[in-house]
């Protein structure tokens, strides 16, 4: 009897979980479907779910009107560049805070995080003016720089909690075994920290890829990444749902694929240290 009850519960919770998952995924699915509709069908009420006239016309129009590859390349450079620079700064910072903490380490960490509590719009005007003066407006370097700084606190926090989990004894054992700091890093620390480094890199890449506030405000065409590319379909000549959907689908496709293949790493990274 107890066994049947358990099986029922498993079935119900499985169905529940699938429904919930579907609900969360639905907007993305709807967007992808809309991108294959004509503009008229995209607006139609009641909406048609699968039985409509499938067309790839929107994709052709979008690529024709605004160069997708130019924006995608900008996104890759901005997200990738800001992530790599953030990691280069964050790794030594997190190392030193995790392995030789001082009395103020906790305060510094909190202070870093506090910068994330400030709404970015609060500093938009000064940043805009500074960028204008030094000629960084609509430049990839400018966007790499601002996104790198914006995400740095989170990168340092993630790496710090990750490094904290590496037992000190192991590093001391390596030191007793005659490893210099450099070799300790190469042979012991880095191999042990790879899952943490990978998940931090992935998460930061996704955050930077989807960042819309600074990219929209500080770029127009030359350095404009995919976020600007999507935004350009939402206003000037009215709303074009199908084309907007096609642009959005194209914009999230690379990061979606990346996320799909690295979901194991991501989940491990995000829940690391939560249970044990």
């Amino acid at each position, binding site marked *: 009897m107890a066994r049947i009850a358990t099986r029922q519960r498993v079935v119900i919770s499985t169905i529940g979980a699938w429904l919930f998952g579907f609900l969360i995924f639905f907007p993305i699915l709807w967007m992808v479907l809309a991108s294959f509709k004509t503009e008229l069908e995209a607006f139609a009420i009641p909406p048609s779910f699968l039985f409509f006239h499938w067309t790839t016309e929107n994709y052709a129009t979008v690529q024709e009107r605004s160069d997708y590859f130019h924006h995608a390349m900008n996104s890759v450079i901005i997200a990738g560049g800001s992530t790599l620079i953030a990691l280069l700064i964050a790794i030594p910072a997190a190392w030193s805070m995790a392995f030789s903490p001082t009395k103020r380490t906790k305060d510094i960490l909190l202070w870093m995080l506090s910068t994330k509590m400030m709404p970015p719009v609060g500093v938009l005007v000064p940043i805009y003016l500074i960028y204008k003066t030094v000629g960084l407006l609509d430049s990839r370097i400018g966007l790499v720089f601002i996104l790198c700084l914006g995400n740095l606190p989170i990168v340092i926090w993630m790496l710090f909690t990750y490094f904290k989990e590496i037992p000190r004894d192991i590093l001391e*054992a390596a030191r007793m075994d005659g490893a210099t700091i450099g070799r300790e890093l190469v042979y*012991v620390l880095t191999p042990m920290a790879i899952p943490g480094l990978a998940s931090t890199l992935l998460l930061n890449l996704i955050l930077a890829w989807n960042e819309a506030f600074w990219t929209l405000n500080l770029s127009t065409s030359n350095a404009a990444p995919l976020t600007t590319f999507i935004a350009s379909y939402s206003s000037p000549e009215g709303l074009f749902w199908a084309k907007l959907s096609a642009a959005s689908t194209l914009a999230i496709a690379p990061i979606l694929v990346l996320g799909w293949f690295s979901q194991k790493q991501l989940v491990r990274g995000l829940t690391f240290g939560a249970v044990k």
Partner: protein
Amino acid sequence: MGQITLQDVQKSFGPVHIIKGADLDIADGSFVVFVGPSGCGKTTLLRLIAGLEDVSGGKILIDGKNVVDTPPAKRGLSMVFQSYALYPHMSVRGNIGFGLKMAGLPKDEINRKVEAAAATLNLSPYLDRKPRELSGGQRQRVAIGRAIVREPKAFLFDEPLSNLDAALRVQMRIEVTRLQKQLGTTAIYVTHDQVEAMTMADKIVVLNGGKIEQYGSPLELYERPANLFVAGFIGSPKMNFVTGESALQRGAATIGVRPEHLKIEREGAGGWQGTISVAEHLGSDTFLYVDAGPLGMLTARYIGELSLHAGDRVSLVPDPARIHRFDDGGNALRG
């Protein structure tokens, strides 16, 4: 060679003095155990010798050379950690050979030495496994393998057996002792378990509150404890301490008698009278916990079985030759 000398070694963390001036002479090839309650500074002292902590004062000499400014790797010591501290991403072979690899030895020589060490420790079948695929005892062996393969001047053991279950602990205790005798390498071993200390050591260092209370062979410590702390710490069950009239009669502030040196007699036979509150029958031994009124609780040990039970009245007669006398300051009185 592996002669280690400490001269007035001190360590403070901020205003807290952890080690308050330690002097010690460890002869080459001897097995020395640091023992004491938790927080007494024994692990800190070991880490100072290893070089994992910097001294705040004093000298550490290894074979006559002061090493306080020498990094851990250059001191020629190897250490076995309480948590084993194996490299999780390396195989057993990689773990044991890591020190040799860092020393830049050629690959075939590393392999030869690793295999020899593995054979000594019965690890040969596991050389290509990762630490997570090994049992606790096997991991401990790998940690020991990593220490012996480098042929160090001395081994440092930081409570290496405390994560093992009781049966395995006894077995590993014997193995470590045998291995150390076979290699003839100096060993310093930290433990809070006085049975481990008594059974393994050539010499024991009893530490308390950052001070060395006594340094001597296990039997010296058992028979001639320097003070109340050592007398109470070494020996199981603990030594009985009696103050007041009985002590004054013998010209001391406190006298101590070990449970095995109390003769258990029928009530009224002289000595100290009391009522048994708990009797433990182990077959090989009988332990009696006796409520002796104003003298407090006394413990007596009888070798073999003794059919006495809680509530029985007994007399406990101390063996006069085995009474330890202590002055007001807790130091042993001799003669």
